[in-house]
């Protein structure tokens, strides 16, 4: 059973991947032509990182809304004008606010967002360290403190050494 399912799943994945890649490729590459082909990778990269202001959770490469089409054309125009990637992002940020950047800049509102992963990892590490230290301390203390008092030990020995009782 298993062996007959696996290959078809693999095929499905391949087909899915093909559709996924070809659809984005068609959405962008069909229409756009550049005076210099070296602009194309930068264009693709920018479209991935710029957010469609109307459709929220899509980038400009994904979205086919009217405003995304306009902004794609605008990005192309700015690239042809020899603007750097940063200049293009600033240009759009000045018009559409920082919302348009999928990778927000570090500033007063976003520093926590950027710092949070580092802070959390350090915090988690400290907690783990403290816990393991406390455990080690606990273990060694356990070894030092006699568990049984002398009186208890005596009774135990007596019980262990005494002939078996109640087996019959």
């Amino acid at each position, binding site marked *: 059973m298993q062996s007959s399912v696996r290959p078809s799943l693999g095929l499905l994945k391949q087909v899915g991947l093909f559709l996924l890649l070809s659809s984005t490729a068609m959405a962008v590459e069909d229409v756009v032509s550049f005076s210099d082909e070296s602009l194309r990778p930068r264009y693709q990269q920018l479209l991935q990182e710029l957010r469609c*202001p109307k459709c929220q959770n899509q980038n400009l490469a994904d979205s086919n809304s*009217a*405003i995304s089409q306009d902004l794609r054309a605008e990005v192309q125009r700015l690239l042809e004008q020899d603007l750097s990637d940063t200049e293009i992002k600033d240009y759009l940020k*000045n*018009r*559409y*606010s*920082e919302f348009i950047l999928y990778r927000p800049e570090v500033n007063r509102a976003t520093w926590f967002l950027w710092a949070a992963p580092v802070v959390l990892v350090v915090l988690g590490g400290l907690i783990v360290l403290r816990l393991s230290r406390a455990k080690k301390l606990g273990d060694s203390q356990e070894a030092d403190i006699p568990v049984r008092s002398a009186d208890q030990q005596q009774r135990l020995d007596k019980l262990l050494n005494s002939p078996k009782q109640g087996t019959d």
Partner: protein
Amino acid sequence: MNRLTLFIPFALCLALGTFLFFSLGKDPLDLPSALVGEPFPDFALEELHQPERQVSIDDFDSQVLLVNVWATWCFACRIEHPWLNSLAKDGVVIVGLNYKDHRKLAQDWLQERGDPYQFSIFDPRGVLGIDLGVYGAPETYLVDAEGIVRHRRVGVVDERVWNEEFRDLYQQLVDEANAE
């Protein structure tokens, strides 16, 4: 002491919960505007009714005014239009920005529904739209006498929105402009 530290996760959850709860009421479509407090971008475009006439920021004539972005393909603009007409009747200066539209359709639309605009900027390619950061019609900008954008509304401006967001600020700006 040790017992109190047990409440730290609880306090954190409470803080996060409160933060998320208050975020619920926010409209995710209400984007921050990059233009508020900035000068209205300059433009050189044709007037909707008179193609031979070029209009620019100078035509704002140092008036306190509204710039209303609209189009015939925009359904919400139909809902908004009667209120704009009544504002214009009350003496509020409104400039139309016809956004990505066809001239003839736009002219007919205004003929049919009334024209509240002092003049209409015709922007078929959305050039000024991009400079303004327009991402959907209708949008309305309140511009002061110095040409600074003081408020922006994305979406319909009706009587409620006017009273809540525009009226007082508009009155204040008009008073300031008159005092000078």
